[in-house]
């Protein structure tokens, strides 16, 4: 029941999001020409796709959620997935990844990886500080060495380290 309510809320949210997006893209497509000599212009297909997206998003938002197909639930209901959803860990991880990406501009990939790894294992895996620090340094070093030296992918050094 909770799962169905959650799905319904998410459906409505996705529907609203896509309706807004498609309206904006219809406006943008209308600024382009619809025809060219003997063929469609650059604005034609974006207009068609955006209109179709608008229609189907409205239908999705207005019609109730159908029962999920059988493949989503096994006949033996002996799953031992934990009953409570752990939104905290999911949200923290998402925020940490966003902070990781932001930090790259300042401390580069090496620094960002170390900080991200450290914060993750401290906050989510709840490791003790020495173990967390050791893992963060080893993993950060391994990623930097592997990509920058072995594979020749030049990673952003960040403003602080000469970027």
């Amino acid at each position, binding site marked *: 029941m909770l799962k169905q309510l959650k*799905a319904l809320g*998410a*459906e409505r*949210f996705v529907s609203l999001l*896509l309706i807004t*997006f498609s309206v904006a893209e219809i406006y*943008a*497509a209308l600024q*382009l020409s619809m025809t*060219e000599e*003997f*063929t*469609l*212009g*650059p604005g034609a*297909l*974006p207009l068609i*796709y955006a209109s*179709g*997206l608008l229609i*189907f998003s409205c239908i*999705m938002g207005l*019609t109730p959620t*159908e029962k*999920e*197909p059988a*493949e*989503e639930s*096994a*006949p*033996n209901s*002996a*799953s*031992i*997935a934990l009953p409570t*959803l*752990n*939104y905290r*860990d*999911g949200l923290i*991880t*998402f925020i940490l*990844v*966003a902070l*990781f*990406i932001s930090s*790259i501009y300042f401390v580069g990939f090496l620094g960002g*990886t170390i900080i*991200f*790894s450290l914060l*993750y*294992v401290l906050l989510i*895996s709840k*490791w003790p500080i020495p173990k967390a620090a050791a893992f963060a340094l080893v*993993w950060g070093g391994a*990623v930097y060495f592997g*990509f920058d030296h072995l594979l020749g*992918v030049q*990673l*952003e050094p960040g403003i602080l380290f000469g970027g």
Partner: protein
Amino acid sequence: MEMLNLLGEGFARIWDPWLLMMCFFGTFAGTLVGVLPGLGPSAAIAVLLPLTYGADPLTALVALSGIYYGAMYGGTITSVLLNVPGESASVVTTYDGYPMARQGRGGAALGVAAIGSFIAGTIGLVFLSLLAVPLSRYALNFGPPEYFAVMVLAFVMVSTLARGNMIKCFVALLLGLLLSTVGQDVVSGETRLTWGSMNLVDGVGFIPAVVGLFGLSEIIHDLINPSQFVDNSKSKIKLREVFLTWDDFRRTWGSMVRGGLLGFFVGVLPGAGATIASFLSYGLEKRISKTPEKFGTGMIEGVAGPESANNAASSGAFVPLLALGIPGSGSTAVLIGAFIILGIQPGPRLMTEHPDITWGLIASMYVGNGMLLAQNILLVPFFIWLLRVSRNIMPVIVATVCVVGVYSVDFSMWDVWLMLIFTALGYIFRVAGVPGAPLVIALVLGQSAEFALRQSLVISMGSASVFFTRPICVIVLATAAACLLYPLIRSKLRGLEETE
């Protein structure tokens, strides 16, 4: 005879230590991707693709393809031991595989899956070898109208056959098509839907989209919905338990062969793929069984058939991919993207212009299939141990590899931010039941479909009748219409039957 010669040349090409090593790396990485939660084959291929830029195209494709079909093997372990499918094609394995594990027969389940996958995978490869050349020769008659029609068929099939509500599939498809139009128009050179942003002039890259939708969002989902191993003692599987007994083999060899044949032909259909093949195989095994009521309680045939089918389907998916350049799933869409980035246009001319690459790739799949059998028999205890110990740090590893991998495509932080946006979108889509595969396929094929359509109209001086006067076009578009209308007609008929 010609096929044997070409295959022989392919084996000669692949029999190189470096290529064999890349084949092993690809299949091992694929199995890991299937075993470990968070990074599906689509995202793994997308992330590892930039790292293969400097390599020979065959080397890169051997490794990336190995990830694709290797993941079919790996997804079984989590299905059996955690009741959580490692890959969508392993969903049905949980029906009987998990009960087998609870009865202390997890090793037998994993063993029959490995052997069945090998037998069926080999069957699929033989058919691939037989069909690829004639189909690509036939497809040489294709012009822009035929290509457009085939892509429409692929879009329709992937939307009607993909998991989930059809409306939601079309939402995902149309969003992918719309995103594929962002950037510079290939015909006129005008920029479209960029909203003045220079970052969008090159369009929405499919690698950030795939990694976000199938990689990081999977990690987030797994953190929010954690799962546990079946009772600890029963998940510690000894190597000898994985080897099948003669009795188990006698019971399941028929399921393996049936799964192989069914899986291959279903896999050829765009949009059908390994997931549908595994469900159809389960249904078939249950129907012909003398004890159908026992399915769902730990029947070994319920593992053998579907696991065989999903592997054969992965071989079948290479038929439209190599011969027509049409992907059948999100993973094969990423592989098509890989071909294009490596400078090789998949399609009928692939066989004539790059026979060494095509047949080298097919030969590598035979070798890879054998490697996977060995890995999934001998390394099962290792994979289980890895799954157990890595759960605390896997999200860090996957997230870091995703960020660095996406950055290394074009050395652009914009791509990394785009990946994060698609991560949020991927999670919300998942909760709302909107599938990601139609979006990815549309993103990869959308520009090609538009180009083919506009080219067709130029050829016909602006007349749409070009699509209704060419026989192949008519047949393909009629098939697409039938696929679109069939579910609607079927539900109406069901409604009428229930009323009566």
